[in-house]
């Protein structure tokens, strides 16, 4: 029987770590992910897990030590947010090219400039080209469930890539919700042991990691990473299926909410999907308008075809980005979803709005306005604000 609990997102991830009992966790505190290493340190202090904690002096060293531990053959992970991830930047690329199945518990927070501790996706979106698998969550339940699937996906022999399990800072990480936890023995069985094929401490084989590879070999390593990322699509779905058999909770690349008959769709990532669902319920109840939501769970690998097929028959689509990329046009999600739609020759009108930067609230009313705009755009065929900011101060 599943265990009923009330946990914050950080508590849920820490509890998953306790159940997985990984080998090594180097971490450096940064708001709002700090609680995760704190909880793990407490489990260790009370003899509840065998994990070795490394009290590194920075996030760069956190990822460096995680990488060393993983290359050595251990199951290793870390947690961070925002500038912490920015300091790891170089290491994200090294981890991916070394094909190390590291798990990063990322609590999304805005990058500094000005300093801000609240949720947006500028940290992970900036790392979207680093070669990491990225899985996002709407709720505490989802981040817990995603975390349990992380090591089996990353360590799969056809994948061997690092993975970040993302949740929105404070909104998810600190908000306490009801949650269903999986029993310890089932988690152990689901996640299993790490048994790497090649590793530094292999008694039967010596290994060199992290070569200098010039133009005669570098490109092949990138192609290999690409193939692994392609394989990750299949493996993510396989793990979701295994997970569903264990818990009854179904996961895919994305969740479609009221999309069966929808004409107007919002595409979004993360916790704001919950607010969007509330707006959909209200609109459908009061007006009967056919509004729906496509909530992205897996952003890397990018499920291009699947997203395009799910959206192609919409009349109008609003893609909502919780981070800027300062192209002076699209945000990251906007650019990629729009490109996907081109492939299926969709006639849908598409706008790309920015919301929630640095933790700015987005409300049910904001979503109602978005759906109203979509309806008007579809009727008139005119787009006045292709790229707009939602909820800006008027003064």
């Amino acid at each position, binding site marked *: 029987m599943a265990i009923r609990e009330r946990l914050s997102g950080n508590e849920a991830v820490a509890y998953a770590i306790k159940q997985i009992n990984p*080998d*090594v966790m*180097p971490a450096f505190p940064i708001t709002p992910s700090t609680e995760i290493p704190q909880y793990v340190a407490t489990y260790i202090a009370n003899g509840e897990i*065998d*994990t*070795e904690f*490394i*009290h*590194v*002096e*920075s996030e*760069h*060293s*956190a990822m*460096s*030590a*995680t*990488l*060393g*531990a*993983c*290359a*050595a*053959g*251990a199951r*290793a992970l870390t947690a961070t947010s925002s500038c912490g991830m920015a300091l790891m930047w*170089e*290491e994200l690329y*090294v981890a991916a090219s070394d094909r190390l199945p590291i798990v990063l518990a990322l609590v999304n927070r805005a990058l500094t400039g000005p300093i801000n501790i609240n949720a947006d996706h500028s940290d992970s979106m900036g790392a979207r080209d680093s070669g990491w698998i990225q899985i996002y969550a709407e709720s505490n339940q989802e981040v817990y469930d995603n975390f349990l699937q992380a090591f089996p996906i990353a360590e799969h022999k056809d994948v061997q890539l690092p993975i970040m399990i993302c949740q929105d800072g404070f909104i998810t990480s600190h908000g306490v919700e009801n949650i269903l936890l999986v029993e310890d023995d089932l988690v152990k069985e689901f996640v299993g042991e790490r048994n790497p094929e090649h590793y*530094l*401490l*292999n*008694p039967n084989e*010596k*290994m*060199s*990691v*992290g*070569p*200098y*590879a*010039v133009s005669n*070999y570098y490109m092949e390593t990138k192609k290999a990473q690409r193939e692994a990322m392609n394989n990750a699509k299949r493996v993510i779905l396989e793990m979701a299926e295994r997970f569903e058999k264990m818990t009854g909770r179904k996961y895919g690349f994305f969740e479609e909410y009221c999309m069966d008959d929808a004409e107007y769709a919002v595409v979004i990532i993360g916790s704001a999907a919950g607010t969007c669902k509330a707006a959909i319920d209200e609109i459908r109840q009061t007006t009967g308008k056919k509004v729906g939501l496509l909530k992205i769970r897996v952003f890397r690998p990018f499920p291009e075809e699947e997203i395009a097929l799910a959206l192609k028959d919409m009349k109008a689509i609003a893609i909502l980005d919780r981070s800027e990329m300062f192209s002076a046009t699209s945000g990251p999600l906007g650019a990629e979803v729009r490109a996907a739609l081109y492939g299926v020759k969709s006639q849908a009108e598409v706008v790309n709005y920015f919301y929630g930067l640095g933790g700015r609230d987005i409300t049910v009313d904001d979503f109602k306005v978005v759906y109203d705009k979509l309806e008007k755009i579809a009727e008139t065929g005119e787009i006045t604000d292709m790229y707009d900011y939602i909820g800006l101060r008027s003064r």
Partner: protein
Amino acid sequence: MAEKYNFKEVMSKPERLAPGHRMCAGCGGTITVRNVLRALHEEDKAVIGNATGCLEVSSYMYPYTAYEDSYIHNAFENAGATLSGVETAYNVLKKKGKIKDTYKFITFGGDGGTYDIGFQSLSGAMERGHDMVYVCYDNGAYMNTGTQRSSATPQFADTTTTPAGSQSNGKVQIRKDLAAIMAEHHIPYVGQTTFTRDFKDLYTKAEKAIYTPGAAFLNVMSPCPRGWGYETSEIMTICKLAVDTCYWPLFEVIDGKWILSYAPKNKLPLEDFLRPQRRFKHLFKPGNEELIGLFQAEVDRRWEELLNKCE
């Protein structure tokens, strides 16, 4: 520890850095690596770490590795943190019974990766007390990128970012004393050495560093013929002059106790060390005598300070 140092025996131990790597002829860094690895007991396994630098790009160029042991290079500034992750993994896997063998952990970095960009990562790894050795092969500049100054570069050295010129006498600042800074971390073992006639000093310090439980730091002056500007065949003379002028004193710090390894009978004037090197050529132009005097005074001051610590 070896009971008695036998040069012939030590030098005939199997090489753990295979020939065929691409380091320059006469490279001091390579001599450091070969001789530190000789101090590993033959039955022990090891994981060798490496900061980005000459050594890394020349010894593990895909698909060839020069290392007879497992080896990991990660990036420039994180050799300390990376190997601390490997060492921690070893402890966990050993505790869980997944590993039976004894492994030792040794990482190499140049002075760029150690004194400068990797300083924080080194300090963190030493403070945490991982059972590992950090070896700095100190050649006194960023040689891999073409002899730019580092905080290990001696004062007045002509480097590509502190060139001697009509308005410049080379590097303005005096060099950082990293071995002393590491000793201030209160780790169980710190050694400073270079190449002496029979390599006993380097060998015994490497063995102590490797086999002292806990964090150890070894600072090895490793001359670079290209960056310093001397004939490759002169390396042993250069090292001897560095030691006999007290520019590069040999000492160790064991559990906080400072021990002088060698005091020259005749302390030679610093200019004997400077003269054979192109990087100090400008100091011997007429009118620059004062600069050599300043440099000499700094060397003397540090030597006295060291003698006081070793009392």
